[in-house]
């Protein structure tokens, strides 16, 4: 029973039924939206500051204490900019693309459990819903690339499709490993069954899922579709003003959503000692996001064929093997002995990493033209 359902039941005792049905939904939407937008703004500030410190500089620190209002000023500036539509672009698609990118990301938060019971909708197929919805934004990026009538944007759009399709597979396969152990697709069930966080029980699954999601949210070292040194800004090269702001928000919203999902699936969600659950959840998503920023500050990006090779030659087979191992363990290992599983999985993870680093070449070489 989620908090919203309890609220609805209580409202039904005093209000007519239709009002009691609609009000909690509106309240929930407002709360989740407020949380997402606020956190995204804080994340933008946090990334810029943290990236600054990694690069021995300060980062924005002028507006407000420690520059916390800088993203708001940036947002205001972006909103006031002229909205430019390419003359020979596809105007309708150009207009629609930011929406198609941004909305699915907001929808993901419907099934994120922030606390015990604090979930907008505890779907019994929660994780499947996440996987399904999050792929939609790839369509938006493709639309943006197509509608811009720009060669850089088109290259970026084609890269996006390839990347999304490839990385969806290992991500889903590593999710199935988690689902097998929990025995449910519901997000809150997944959290509640993690007495030991799954990052310890399934290290390989976690690494695959983490790398896959980093690729899906187009972060370094997989940020090929906005690779500024190659294709300038990729799909949003022809966007400005509010539409660009939507992409920008979408990018960070994506990062926030996937931080939430990684925290939920592998880090034990809101579970934790002493502190209140919501604080634990925030600590975990900030930790995940910090690692992503850290990677961004250090790593160069892969080439497009290497990126595909990494997905199909490294992550996918490893995810399949991981799935088999977890399935076997779920079938035959008694539930009382999770620590055996930890040892076995760590051993398998290191052996597989060693093997794969020796066996497979990453990407092709020169093409004869």
């Amino acid at each position: 029973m989620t908090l919203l359902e309890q609220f609805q039941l209580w409202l039904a005792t005093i209000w007519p039924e239709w009002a009691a049905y609609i009000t909690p939904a509106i309240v929930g939407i407002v709360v989740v939206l407020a949380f997402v937008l606020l956190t995204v703004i804080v994340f933008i500030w946090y990334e810029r500051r943290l990236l600054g410190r990694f690069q021995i500089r300060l980062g924005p620190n002028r507006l407000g204490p420690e520059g916390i209002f800088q993203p708001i000023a940036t947002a205001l500036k972006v909103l006031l900019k002229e909205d430019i539509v390419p003359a020979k672009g596809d105007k309708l698609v150009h207009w629609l693309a930011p929406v198609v990118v941004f909305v699915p990301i907001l929808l993901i938060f419907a099934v994120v459990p922030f606390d015990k019971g604090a979930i907008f909708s505890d779907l019994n197929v929660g994780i499947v819903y996440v996987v399904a919805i999050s792929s939609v934004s790839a369509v938006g990026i493709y639309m943006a690339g197509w509608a811009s009538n720009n060669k850089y944007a088109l290259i970026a759009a084609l890269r996006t499709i390839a990347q999304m399709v490839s990385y969806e597979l290992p991500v889903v396969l590593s999710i199935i490993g988690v689902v097998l152990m929990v025995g449910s697709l519901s997000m809150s069930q997944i959290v509640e069954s993690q007495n030991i966080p799954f990052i310890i029980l399934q290290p390989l699954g976690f690494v695959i899922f983490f790398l896959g999601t980093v690729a899906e949210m187009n972060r370094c070292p997989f940020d090929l579709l906005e690779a500024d040194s190659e294709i300038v800004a990729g799909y949003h090269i022809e966007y400005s003003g509010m539409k660009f702001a939507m992409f920008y928000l979408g990018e960070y919203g994506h990062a926030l959503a996937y931080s939430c999902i990684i925290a939920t699936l592998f880090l034990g969600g809101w579970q934790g000692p002493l502190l209140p659950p919501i604080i634990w959840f925030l600590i975990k998503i900030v930790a995940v996001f910090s690692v992503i920023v850290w990677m961004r500050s250090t790593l160069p990006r892969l080439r497009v064929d290497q990126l595909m090779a990494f997905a199909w030659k490294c992550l996918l087979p490893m995810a399949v093997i991981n799935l088999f191992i977890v399935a076997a363990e779920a079938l035959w290992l008694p539930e009382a002995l999770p620590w055996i599983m930890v040892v076995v999985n760590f051993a398998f993870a290191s052996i597989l990493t060693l093997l794969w680093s020796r066996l497979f070449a990453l990407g092709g070489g020169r093409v004869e033209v």
Partner: protein
Amino acid sequence: MRFERYGVGVAKGMVVTFKHLFRHPITVQYPEERLVVSRRIRGNELVWFPDRCTGCATCAKSCPQGNIEIVTHIGDEDKYVVDKFEVDTGRCMFCGLCVESCPYEALAMGISYERAQYRRRQLVLSKEELQLSDIRRPSGYARPKIEPTLPRQSLLVDWDREEGGQKLSRLPLSKKRGRGV
């Protein structure tokens, strides 16, 4: 190519960036904090001393761009009197050849570096504007007498130098606000 060393190199690089997280940022927050410029700085202006100038126009001849315009007439005691001394700092490339060539040390580079203007015309400095004043002071470029009187330059090499057992993590800065140095 292969991932031959299974991510050890990636991890090493990540350690380096992580170490930098705890180093002091080298940013100098410019309008509030200012580095002390070199004693020989060739700033965005020239300083002209009318009492020393004989109107020989050596500076004008040595200028690669032909920026210095001098008009003189012969006055009393058979000496040149400078009627017009005009420098177009908008076209000047601050090479310092005029200052070096002046035989009477009548011209010096200025130490200021904040001389942006809204109009190109404002960058053309006349005889009166070029003279020594509070905001227009000469630097030690090719003027060894002025050089020791100026403050010591702040150097980034001194950044994490240890001196007397304590670690310096900030540069010597001049905290003066407002226009000019």
